[in-house]
């Protein structure tokens, strides 16, 4: 098991750079392009949520991405913030109405994940996304 922890201020530019840095790590770990796209999308949704929602009505705080590689089984992505947390915990995850402008982020993450959860730990709010990786989808392990 190998973990990578990436941390910055939750502004839009830095957050996107941090997400791309996490994707650089995943890109050297997972070979399958579709699986990588799924990670990219899940990470984009989770980071956008921290940027837009975690610190609403207060000073913008930090964003932390943890990538944990459980070779040869799965990868867990955790995205944490230090805000007051979700309006309701555990969050009820459902798809939005077609005409709705928002409300699809958590649903997308949960659809992409083999296991999806939110939790509070050490003063952080954490969204946790686990995606199983098939034997042939890994980059050969050093």
């Amino acid at each position, binding site marked *: 098991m190998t973990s990578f922890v990436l941390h910055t201020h939750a502004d*839009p530019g830095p957050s996107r750079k941090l997400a791309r840095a996490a994707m650089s790590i995943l890109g050297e770990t997972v070979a399958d392009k579709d699986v990588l796209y799924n990670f990219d999308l899940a990470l984009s949704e989770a980071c*956008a949520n921290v940027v837009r929602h975690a610190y609403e009505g207060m000073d913008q705080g930090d964003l932390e991405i943890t990538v944990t590689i459980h070779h040869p089984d799965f990868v867990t992505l955790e995205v944490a913030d230090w805000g007051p947390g979700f309006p309701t915990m555990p969050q009820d995850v459902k*798809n939005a109405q*077609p005409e709705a402008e928002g409300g699809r*982020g958590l649903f*997308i993450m949960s*659809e992409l994940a083999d296991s999806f959860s939110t939790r509070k730990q050490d003063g952080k709010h954490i969204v946790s996304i686990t995606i199983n990786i098939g034997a042939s989808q890994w980059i050969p392990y050093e």
Partner: protein
Amino acid sequence: MDSLRIENKDNALHLVFSGEITLEITTDLKKAIEKAMADETFDALVADLAQVTFMDSSGIGFLVALNTKIMGTGKKMYLLSPSTQVRKTFELVQLSNFFTILDSEEDLLQL
């Protein structure tokens, strides 16, 4: 804007997107499109999504809002040849049948 080219062809306002449609860019996209919609005369709006490499729920929200706005003016909105990445995001949120998707520009002429 690098990620949006706007053309008016035969009364159809073409929005040719490229690259990523995410949170960072949607505000700028909205502004550019609102300006074009005010300046141009057109019957239909065509969002060309062939060159979009990545789209998340902010991109979806942006397209849904645009669609609502166009419908409100009695015009039509089409999505032209969305990339596999865009199709994937639509499928995830079960919106593949919500928009009218055209596979090629020829389909547009036959409408």
